[in-house]
């Protein structure tokens, strides 16, 4: 028992003081406790920001909100894999645990990254149902419950960015907006009112950075923390975009 009390977990954290400064690593030790997760461990480091070799340092900076895997904020690279820190249980991770920022995105500081590009992409794909207003219009249309269930699955996407971090086609070499925002177009095309703008969305996805930039590496579906069948919907969208392209030719 006494032995167990002394058990610690070692973290090797990749840090960076500012967007244009050089990364460096620091090691920290945190007391083990059952069901400890990565966010809870980072919180312990906040309480006592001292490295393994006894140096007092600034606490590690990262982003988190809900700690329930719904907000998407705490995405980082843990032992080489992009995932949410809040639900990464220490017991299931190989030690020492390596934490690094998701470098597909600009690093602000330490593990804190700038994912605003994803929200910009949601503007580009017109990720909304174009309702007239919040006022009363009439009853909403009845929906096929099976279609609604597919929509529900896709609508779990929390814009965390795991799929962009894992995708080999997202990065400085390409304009690809990434799996998450692309698949959101499919979501709105499913809705009985949202599909009125289907053509617009498909034409947008036919442009540079759209679905043609997807290399079908299938990494996205592997890392999606919400188990969204990203590759299935990407394939469906690809067909839709091609069909639309043909339509556009004949309608010229």
């Amino acid at each position, binding site marked *: 028992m006494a032995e167990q009390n002394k058990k610690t977990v070692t973290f090797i954290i990749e840090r960076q003081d*500012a967007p244009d400064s050089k990364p460096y690593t620091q090691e920290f030790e945190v007391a083990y*406790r059952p*069901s*400890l*997760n990565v*966010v*809870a461990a980072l*919180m312990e480091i*906040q*309480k*006592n*920001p001292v490295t393994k070799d006894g140096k*007092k340092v*600034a*606490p590690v*900076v990262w982003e988190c*909100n*809900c*700690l*329930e*895997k*719904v*907000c*998407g*904020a705490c995405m980082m690279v843990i032992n080489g894999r992009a995932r949410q820190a*809040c*639900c990464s*249980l220490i017991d299931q991770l190989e030690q020492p645990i390596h934490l690094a920022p998701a470098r597909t995105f600009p690093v602000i*500081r330490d593990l*804190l990254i700038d994912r*605003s590009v994803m*929200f910009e992409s*949601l*503007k580009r794909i017109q*990720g*909304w*149902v*174009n*309702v007239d*207003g*919040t*006022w*009363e*219009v009439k*009853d*909403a249309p*009845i*929906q096929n*419950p099976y279609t*609604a269930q597919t*929509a*529900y699955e896709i*609508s*779990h996407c*929390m*814009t965390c960015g795991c799929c962009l971090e894992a995708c080999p086609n997202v990065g400085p070499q390409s304009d690809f907006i990434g799996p998450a925002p692309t698949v959101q177009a499919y*979501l*709105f095309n499913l*809705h009985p009112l*949202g599909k009125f703008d289907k053509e617009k969305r498909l034409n947008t996805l036919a442009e540079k950075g759209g679905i043609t930039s997807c290399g079908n590496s299938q990494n996205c579906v592997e890392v999606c923390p919400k188990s969204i069948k990203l590759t299935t919907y990407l394939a469906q969208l690809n067909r839709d975009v091609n069909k639309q392209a043909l339509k556009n030719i004949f309608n010229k």
Partner: protein
Amino acid sequence: MAKNKIIVVGGGLSGLMATLKICEAGGEVDLFSYCPVKRSHSLCAQGGINACMDTKGEHDSIYEHFDDTVYGGDFLADQTAVKGMCDAAPKLIKMFDRMGVPFTRTAEGVLDLRNFGGQKNKRTCFAGSTTGQQLLYALDEQVRKWEVQGSVKKYEFWEFIKVIKNKEGICRGIVAQNMNSMEIQAFRGDTTILATGGPGMVFGRCTASTICNGSAVSAVFQQGAHIGNPEFIQIHPTAIPGSDKNRLMSEACRGEGGRVWVYKDGKPWYFLEEMFPAYGNLVPRDVASRAIYDVCMNQHLGINGENRVYLDLSHIPADYLERKLGGILEMYSEFVGDDPRKVPMQIYPSVHYSMGGIWVDRKHNTNIPGLMASGECDYQYHGANRLGANSLLSAAYSGTVSGPEAMRWAKEGERGSELTDEDLAKAKQECVDDFEAILKMDGKENAHELHHELGDVMNKYVTIERVNKDLDYCFAEVKKILVRWNDIGVTDRGHWANQEAMFVRQLRNMIIYALVVTKAARMRDESRGAHYKREFPTRDDERFLKTTIVDFNAEKQEPEVTYIDFDHSLIKPRPRNYAVAKKEDK
């Protein structure tokens, strides 16, 4: 003519709803948030949103929803305000449906409804077990559309510091800080709406997100805003206890047939069903939490002697559970390791929601002209206890009220003198000075450790059962923590993404809000809804059928409590007893 500029602080359900209404009325919004608004805490709401849709052949009525809400709130809510909310609920659901919220549907494609606590009829619309996430996303998407059109400017990763008043005492703007560059800036606004959510972090471990610290509410309290009914803190009966946070296990579990039990004399004892035959497992949250507390603390029947009871779904078919509760069962498996489809979950009550908050009138104006409050940060609609699935409703509904009212005030209000550039510079400089002082703090306390202590003492003394002498002790302890705040040492003295320094500023506001809650709890010598004192076990309408108002005494740096009358003219207060079916005095 220049468009009216409204400042909205907070991008959860209420702030976004208000933003949409302002845009539709031709205004412009500066929207401030700690985080991308899509990551706001509204998305943690799981079980559903109440609205009388009456599609289950139960002859549900809006009046019944109204009565359940007032009765559930132990008659402390403004009844005209509640009625307005219940009337509007079905229309709001249709709006969300048009916007594309993937509500769970029946085989014929209409919205399904489920049972929820404190309500006999099926009245809760839901999207699986992630209703809040889905509703928030719908509004986030609509606001993005307005953002593209130029009506909304988002200030994400900005922290609200305080409001700026003109010489007549009218709120004309705010000061905020960029959380990355640390730049502090003053902003003008014709009206300011705070929609900053609840103060869960004051209690340390709770079901709230880490951003729900009540700091903004405490800041405007210290600038003269009244706080209403802060002693009414909802303790959710079913949460997964954790060392970093208590994770919510939705009331929908009970709504879909979940049973709460412990072993007694070697056999399962379904104590809620035995204690409250009329409502059984579907008693409101305050009632269920007190029963669980009693079973564990007084009867010592918790699982293995620990403060845990079973919440059991294992008797329900797995495919049904998957469809209705999928997301949260997966969460339980992920964080605990057991499969709730096969073995009963282990849960315990946790701080969850604040019924109280900034006092507002029915249009959501605070007592500071030009400043409004909307959503969980206000005190409206729930009285002494909130019914499950009424929070998404009150959040969305309050935005439909505060948004248009903000525009009305911007156009017609007596706003007094404009803020001059000197006024703005002065307000900004005060905040800069305060922040620079924090960066220089070199005492021996760690802010996060101090916060941990604050949470411990608040959780111990100001939750399910409250005792006057303990509350006196707690108040004194929190005051000591406030003094110790001055002795904090900051390790990060930089001017780039300095989360530690911002937390130090938030912590002081949290400590002061803790004093507000504790003081209000100490003064209310009765038991009503979520506020329970063994010394005063019954409701005392003669003395306390009143709204608690807390003001800040700047000289003593202490809260002061008074009481005011409120509107309870529509339904006559009657005793609240969930052991028997509800009877109405009409």
